[in-house]
């Protein structure tokens, strides 16, 4: 086990002294969200919206989560450890209780997973390696999973808010979870009110009441903060930061995240069916200018592959930089006459999406590309034509390297809208997920990333900072680089001194 602990690194995770500071619970923390929607659900397994994820993170616990350093840590689990091979995993639960006072048991975890498979809910795609019939429960706090095939991604798969653990006999209409806050009132698309669970295993939440308030857009949300109608404005557009900073009673907390708006080059469409054009296009993007002009500095450089906070991320590949002349030369050498026309489709999947696309048009023009941009609304973008755009801007991130690959890069990836495949890459992926020896695994992953870097179909130009604005009274913000939400959605540890 000692060797395994050493070699598995991030995979073996054991709870590190759970400290619960006795903080007085008081007041109401009001958090702005852009935007809640009618489709926000109280069923974590069915959540697909930003609001649904934020709600799930209050009501429920996941077995594991990405902590303030971006690394995996246990949450409802006390430890998650592989057996001698990566096809057997043992999960030990901590002492926790449901919001109705009943204890959380291993049987509830089995019931949660059984529910995913019985009702064919989305989390089943996170854990294709689990056979729900092959989970042993040696005691109330222990589960032993016998997987269909070995994988080192077992503990990462449970970080998604959709994989939250619910009690046996769960009814989404009357949700009960083991999270820091219980549901008080639900007005879909407008407001969600929670009350603190004083008996939460990580200590009573610092605010007695938590409120999510929906705003139609980022400027309304910031207005509400200026008017002290809310205490925290989540996911603030960098363009609005100066407005916030002009008010002495407000502060901005930000941290780099693994979230990215990535350009997807469709290899089934012209001109990106030609790898040479893809290579030239990656030289046509001025990443630093994007950071300066679109993000006001609230972003970090990307290098065309994902998951910068994964311990296996290769930081040594040379940073790709803007080189319009070389891009032109590459195109010319391949027999293209400038400008090469590219159809780009975008939507407002992030507040900065349109600005990022607009700036690309200028940058790429100097590199011999004529980018013709069409902005559509989200329902159209993610509609039937999704996956047919020659070039599009997608929002991804907050996944480890293997999950990101399994979702968007490998041959079987369900959301690989670039349609790029590479047998060598797939082979390395299959090998890497089964490799327990960490140096060997890192080597395989670096080879995967080299392939993405050299000939992949994504332009990962920058990673976005998570920017939260709040009144100076609210304290306790930490960086959660692998979680899509302010303070990693951990509103229970924020203190409002006002």
């Amino acid at each position, binding site marked *: 086990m000692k060797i395994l602990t050493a070699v598995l690194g991030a995979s073996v995770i054991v709870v590190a002294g759970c400290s619960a500071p006795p903080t007085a619970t008081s007041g109401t923390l009001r958090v702005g969200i852009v935007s809640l929607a009618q489709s926000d659900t109280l069923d974590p397994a069915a959540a697909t919206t930003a609001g649904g994820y934020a709600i799930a993170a209050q009501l429920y616990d996941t077995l594991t989560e990405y902590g303030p350093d971006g690394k995996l840590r246990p949450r409802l689990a006390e430890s998650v450890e592989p057996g001698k091979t990566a096809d057997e995993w043992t999960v030990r639960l901590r002492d926790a209780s449901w919001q109705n006072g009943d204890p959380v048991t291993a049987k509830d975890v089995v019931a949660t997973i059984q529910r995913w498979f019985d009702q064919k809910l989305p989390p089943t795609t996170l854990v294709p390696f689990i056979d729900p019939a092959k989970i042993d429960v040696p005691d109330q706090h222990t589960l032993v999973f016998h997987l269909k095939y070995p994988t080192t991604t077992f503990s990462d798969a449970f970080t998604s808010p959709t994989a939250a653990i619910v009690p046996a006999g769960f009814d989404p209409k009357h949700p009960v979870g083991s999270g820091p806050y219980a549901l008080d009132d639900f007005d879909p698309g407008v407001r969600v009110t929670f009350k603190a669970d004083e008996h939460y295993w990580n200590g009573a939440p610092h605010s007695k009441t938590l409120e999510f308030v929906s705003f139609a857009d980022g400027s309304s949300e910031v207005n509400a903060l200026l008017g002290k109608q809310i205490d925290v404005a989540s996911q603030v557009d960098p363009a609005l930061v100066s407005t916030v900073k002009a008010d002495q009673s407000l502060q901005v907390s930000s941290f780099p995240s693994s979230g990215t708006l990535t350009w997807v080059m469709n290899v089934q469409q012209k001109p990106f069916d030609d790898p040479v054009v893809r290579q030239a296009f990656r030289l046509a993007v001025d990443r630093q200018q994007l950071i300066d002009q679109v993000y006001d500095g609230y972003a970090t450089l990307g290098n065309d592959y994902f998951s910068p906070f994964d311990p296996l991320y290769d930081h040594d590949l040379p940073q790709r930089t803007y080189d319009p002349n070389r891009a032109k030369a590459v195109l010319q050498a391949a027999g293209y006459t400038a400008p090469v026309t590219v159809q780009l489709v975008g939507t407002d999947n992030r507040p900065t999406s349109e600005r990022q696309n607009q700036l690309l048009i200028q940058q790429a023009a100097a590199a011999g590309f004529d980018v013709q941009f069409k902005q559509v609304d989200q329902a159209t973008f993610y509609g039937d034509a*999704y996956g047919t755009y020659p070039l599009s801007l997608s929002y991804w991130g907050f996944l480890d390297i293997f999950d990101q690959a399994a979702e968007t890069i490998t041959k079987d990836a369900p959301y690989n809208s670039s349609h790029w495949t590479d047998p060598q890459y797939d082979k390395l992926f299959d090998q890497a997920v089964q490799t327990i020896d960490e140096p060997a695994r890192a080597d395989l992953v670096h080879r995967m990333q080299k392939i993405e870097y050299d000939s992949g179909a994504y332009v990962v130009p920058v990673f976005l900072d998570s920017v939260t604005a709040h009144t100076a009274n609210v304290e306790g913000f930490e960086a959660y680089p692998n979680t899509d939400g302010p303070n990693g959605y951990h509103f229970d540890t924020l203190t409002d001194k006002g």
Partner: protein
Amino acid sequence: MTTREPSEARLIAKLLGRRLAIGVVMMIVVSLLVFTLTQALPGDIVRQVLGQTATPGQITRLRAELGLDKPLVVQYLHWLGGMVSGDFGSSLASHTPVADLLASRIQNTATLVAITIVITVPLAVALGVLSARRPGGVADHLVSASAQLVLSLPEFVVGIIFILLFATNVTKVLPPTSVLDSRLPAIAQPELLILPVLTLAVTASPYLIESVKTAMREQLVSEHVRWARLSGIGENRVIVHFGLRNALPSSIQVAAMTVAYLLGGTVAIETVFSFPGLGAELVDAVAARDIPVVQAIVMIVGAASLVGYILADLAVILLTPRVRTAVA
């Protein structure tokens, strides 16, 4: 007199009946339009609900679950039949009955519009009369210039200007957004209503003021007003009894149009203030392709406007003997 009144009442009933019949036909036309146009929206609710990470299997299952795999004619008849019996169907996004979902939104928007009308109509009549009294005078110029200014600005810009003036930049006396608490009636949260009402009132009143002014001007230069003045009747009495009384019928029709305009104006204004009403819900529902909700809101707004027009017609008939007898 005893023989005339029942027949007059019967005439009015007949007229009203005809208006209602036309109204029903119009609602059916509206329903056809709404249904076909919402079907023509690009994009797909199923993908919206399931998100970027939907698999084809999940899409097919949800489509069947929502009845979206049936022929359009069947879907239309089913929808129309439901609506006649007061069943607006279920939201595709939240699976809750549309009626439950819209109940508090209808109350919020109705409160907003009602307060705005109560403020706007007397104000517009007063300003219209004031500027009609001395065409080209100071009051006339001031009112016209402000009306021109307001008319040149989109509603949301007026809303943003008021936010800057009263909530965020110049002064901070009012709340900048109006996310009502659904556990309380809208009227119990008056501070959240002030800016949306103000914006709606300011953007809607130019039309009403202009129509009162025009109608009053016509009256004030008419024969009977000149006769009244020559008879030595006081100017205020002339304006109220001889001017306004006769200018009112045409203004009532404009007022009815203003109600329809206000209902439309709520779309932009509710969005600016994040006000949870029908207008903001319509924007969200269109974005989410939540077709039953879109259809229900458009039908409700259409029906409300139609009722407004019919009531205005009725008021005009009752106020104008000429129209009453013309019917006969």
